[in-house]
Structure formats: structure tokens, C-alpha cells
């Protein structure tokens, strides 16, 4: 199996999962990842068709993810609403919005749009390069810089971060914005880099896969990336195996990483890896 092909298959999920790692490390669980990816995919195609440039498309998709993140941040951080509820609402919003706009703009025929893809040199395009750079960079930033330490503190023990003079609210804004922006880019790459088109609900659960991968990769960027590669490999394998008929139950193979992720969680419990304050809202004393 060609490594670049696997990388390309894995890239959307890997990008989203990498962003989500940063978000979860800051203490926010971004269930709305799926919707942000979908919005990224749609607006990327829309902008590409309007301007004729896939670069403008990538930009538009990323901005769509960022915009939805700002909405999530307003609700989760500002209003301290429940993160799961807000995330699910964002997903519904994105599915509905992209589906309706898609049909309104491109007719009800459901025809596959074809858009110019991102140019690449022997299979390696700038987004893949960015991904390969982002993995060690995120790892280094989270683990070796004071900013990363503060972000992690806001996810582990927000009171300590606050006592050290950091604003948990701001750190969580940052975490959410990073995860949503990465999801937007991931979606844009899915439509422009991998599929070369848009279809209704085309992310088909990839946002949730990314959330699962963060767990599978134990909240560590390199492991999350390797987990995404594994999923990408299985994803590409699926098509090869489908050609062979039902000799190999590939669905069971695809289910395997999720079972392993669960098993890892069962083994480790809540003790190791997971940010202690993940998913809880934080209210400053006297605030």
C-alpha cells in the first residue's frame, strides 16, 4: 500500500483529531466536530466553484470551521452551556444548512459536483505537508512550552491555571478555536483533496471518528496521528477488500479500532491520559 495514498485518506480525520486533541487538552469536548468538518467541506467547494481557485476554497472551508467554533465558544465558554448539547446542536445546524444550501444552489438532482483539486507534486500537496509539520509542532507546543502547559492546566485543573494568572476562559476559547479551525480545514481537504466533490452529509461520521481517535491516541499528538493513519489504512483497505467480495468481513476490521479504543479506556479508567476536567464548565470564583 502506497504510504502517500494512506496519508491522503487519513489526512481529514488526522487534521480534525489533531485539533480536537488541543481542544480536549484545554478541557472542552467538541462534539460539534462533525458539523464543522461538513461546513468546511461545503464552503470549500462553494468558494472553489465561485472563484475557480481551490486555494480560496481551502481558505473558505477553514473560515467556516472557525466561524462555527466562535458560535460554540460563545455557548460553551461564555454561557457555560453544556458542551455535549451545544456540540450536537452545531452538528444539526451544519447538516441542515449545508444540505439545504447545496440543494438550493446545485439543484435537487443530487449530481456530483466536480471541482478542481488542490495541485500536488507527486502526491504530496501543501495540506499534507502542513499535517506532517503540525504533528511534531503540536506535540512540542503542548508538552514543551509555557503556553501549552497553561492550556493543559486548564483541562486538568482549571483552578490551578487561574491561580497561576491564566484566564481559563481564554485558554478554552483558544482550544475550541484551534479544534474548529482544524476541523474546517479537514473538511475542506476532504472535499477538495480527497473526494474532488461535495455530497450531502459527505463527512459521514468522520468528525466522530476524530473524537474517538483522540481517545485511542491517549491525547498525545503523535499517537493520535498514528491512530488516524491506521484508520486511513483500513479505510483504503475497505475498497480493495470490497472488490474481493465478502471473503474478509471488513466491517469487523473497521470496528476493531473502536473496540480497541474502548478496551484501552477500560484498562486505564479515568486515571491516565484523559484531561481531568474534560467536558466540565468552569466558573471563576467570584465571577
Amino acid at each position, binding site marked *: 500500500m502506497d504510504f502517500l495514498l494512506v496519508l491522503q485518506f487519513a489526512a481529514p480525520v488526522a487534521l480534525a483529531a489533531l485539533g480536537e486533541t488541543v481542544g480536549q487538552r484545554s478541557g472542552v*469536548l467538541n*462534539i460539534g466536530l462533525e458539523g464543522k468538518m461538513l461546513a468546511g467541506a461545503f464552503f470549500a467547494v462553494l468558494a472553489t466553484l465561485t472563484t475557480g481557485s481551490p486555494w480560496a476554497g481551502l481558505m473558505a472551508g477553514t473560515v467556516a470551521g472557525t466561524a462555527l467554533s466562535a*458560535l460554540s465558544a460563545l*455557548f460553551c465558554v461564555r*454561557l*457555560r*452551556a*453544556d458542551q*455535549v*448539547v*451545544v456540540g*450536537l*446542536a*452545531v*452538528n*444539526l*445546524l*451544519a*447538516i*441542515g*444548512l*449545508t*444540505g*439545504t*444550501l447545496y*440543494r*438550493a444552489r446545485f*439543484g*435537487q438532482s443530487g449530481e456530483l459536483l466536480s471541482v478542481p483539486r488542490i495541485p500536488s507534486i507527486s502526491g504530496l500537496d501543501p495540506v499534507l505537508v502542513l499535517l506532517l509539520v503540525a504533528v511534531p509542532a503540536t506535540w512540542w507546543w503542548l508538552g514543551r512550552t509555557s503556553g501549552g502547559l497553561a492550556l493543559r492546566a486548564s483541562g486538568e485543573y482549571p483552578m490551578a491555571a487561574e491561580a497561576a494568572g491564566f484566564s481559563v476562559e481564554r485558554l478554552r476559547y483558544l482550544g475550541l478555536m484551534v479544534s474548529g479551525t482544524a476541523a474546517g480545514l479537514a473538511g475542506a481537504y476532504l472535499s477538495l483533496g480527497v473526494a474532488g466533490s461535495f455530497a*450531502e452529509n459527505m463527512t459521514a*461520521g468522520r468528525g*466522530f*471518528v476524530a*473524537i*474517538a481517535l483522540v*481517545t485511542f491516541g491517549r491525547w498525545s499528538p503523535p499517537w493520535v496521528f498514528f491512530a488516524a493513519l491506521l484508520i486511513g489504512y483500513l479505510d483504503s483497505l475497505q475498497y480493495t477488500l470490497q472488490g474481493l467480495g*465478502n471473503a474478509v*468481513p471488513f*466491517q*469487523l476490521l*473497521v*470496528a476493531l479500532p*473502536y*473496540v480497541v*479504543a*474502548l478496551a484501552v*479506556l*477500560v484498562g486505564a*479508567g*479515568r*486515571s491516565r491520559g*484523559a484531561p481531568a476536567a*474534560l*467536558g*466540565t*464548565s*468552569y*466558573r471563576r470564583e467570584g465571577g
Partner: protein
Amino acid sequence: VKIRLAQVLGVAIGLIAVLAMTLAVFGLPIWSSMALLAEGAFGDRFGVARTLVKATPLALVALGLSIAWRARMFNIGGEGQFIAGGLCGATFAKFMEGLPPVWLGAGVLSACLTGGALYGGLAGWLYVRRGVDVVISTILLNFVALQLLGWAVAGPLRAKPDGLPLTGPLPQGAMLPRLDPQSDLHVGIICAAAAAVVVYLFLFRTVGGYRMRLVGEAPKAARLAGVAAGRSQIAAMLASGGLCGLAAAIEYLGLAGQLGTSFAQGWGFLGIPVALIGFLHPLVVPLSALYFGALFAGSENLARFTPAGTTIVFVVQGVAVLALVAARSLTRKGRAGIKEPA
């Protein structure tokens, strides 16, 4: 938490307003679009049947999720529990083919319920015993169930070795009785109504239900009162999954008659906003389910005349949930920022 009539009315008016706004944002004429929606949902007996048939799984899933969320178990695995239920039902049907049809139907129903309950209970058990977050575990379990379904209908449960990936159809006698021989309307809607009453009585009139709500609303008080939180939480997840399994049984025995890869149709996910907008209250949830059932039914009619379709319902759901969350956050200022069931 007592739900006042004024709150329900407020949400009802809000939902209409959100619908009107959504239509306006997409540039659709508000009145004629609403008329198309109403016609599709209530225009004739077939419209009413479509509305009720769609409201049924929404209501059952949402009732189940309400129980779990009230015990502070953020179950988003309705989809997985729905599928697990359907799979158990189909397995029963495959191996008990020889049973008289009525018994076959009853057996499939119990198998679906049990399968859903166990799948939900598994997530509950993992949380209580191993500290695995319910949100994460139910997401993972959704994937596992979906892949298992794909494997089962293509492999061991497939009706014909070279046919489509579908299970064998159930005999007509095993299916749920129809209320109207000409439309799809079946007795499932009565099951859903009965389930709402049962869940209401359980949550608000029994000690077990009280414990679940206490664990969810005031975990500290529950601990001080000596309530075994873990047992209540596992029980809540069992009940939650069981109702999702029941929803699957009713889809299976009422409409589909067989399982394919797209058996769940997203009911498990779509039930979540229905539950939230229904205040997680078993007597309000059915109203919420009816509203969205009508919207889904009506949107099929809307789709015939305008570019908008079912997707517009998702927008209404998303906006309505956000609006409700915002309203609640703004009226709750000053209280400690603890995570509330809704």
C-alpha cells in the same frame, strides 16, 4: 423540576418562530411553505399517518434518552442501542423461524428490547465500574454497532447468499397490526404513548425514579442520603437503551420487516434534540416528537415544490436547541456553574 404550562407554550411558540425564521433565511415564502408543510403533515389521512409513524421512534428514543440524561448519563448512543436492538431481533427471527408468527413477533420485540438495554447498560457499567466517560463510550459503541450491522446483514443474517445485504422479511403475521389498512399507521404510536405514561410514573412516582433524578440533579445530596449512585446510573442506562431497542422493534415490526445497512436512519441521533426540547420530561417529550414528526412528514411535501427538504428540519432542531440552551443559561445566572442534565 416542575415544568410549567407557560414554559411549554413558550417553547411551542418559539418553535414556530424558529421555523418561520429558518424558512425566511433560506429565502422561502413563509406562509406558502408553512401551508405546504401543514398539508404534508396533516392534509389527509396519509399525512397524519406519516406524521405519527415518524413521531413514534422519535418519541421512544427521546423518552429513553431523557431517563439517562436525567441521571446525568449523557447517553448519545441512541443510534447504537437502536441498532443493537434491531440486530438481536433479527438474530432471534433467523433462528426461531419456525415459531408461529405471533410468537415470532413477540419474541423479536423482546429480543430488540433486551439487546438495546444491554448495549446501553454496557456503557453504564463501563462508566460506573471503570470510569469510562459515557459520551466517549457511546460514540465508540455507535461505530461498533454500525459496523456489526453492516457485517451481519452482509454475512450471517443475509437472506440470500448472492442477494442484497438484507435480512429475510418477517412473515406478515409477525408484524404489528395496522390501525389503518390503507396507510402505514400501526399500533406503534399507542406503544409510544403508553411508554410515555410508564416513564412518567416511574420517574416521578417511584423511589427508583426519584433516586435517578436525585443522582442527576444533586449528586452530593444523593451521596449523603446513601443512594447507590452507580446502581441508579446503570439502571438508567439499561432503561434508556431498552427504550431505544423498543423503538427499533417498532420500526422493524411496524414498517421495515427486515434489516438493511441503513436500518437506523438516524433516529437515535434525531431523538436527542427531541428530548432536549421536550425538557427531558416524559409528558412533554411526546409533544416535541409530534412536532418534529410532523415537520419531517411535512418536509417531504415541501421538497416536492421547493429546493428545501428534510434538511430544513435539522436547522430548526439545531437553532431551537441553541435558543433553549441560551435562554436557560441567561435565566440561571448567579447559580454555581455545575453541569446540569439539560
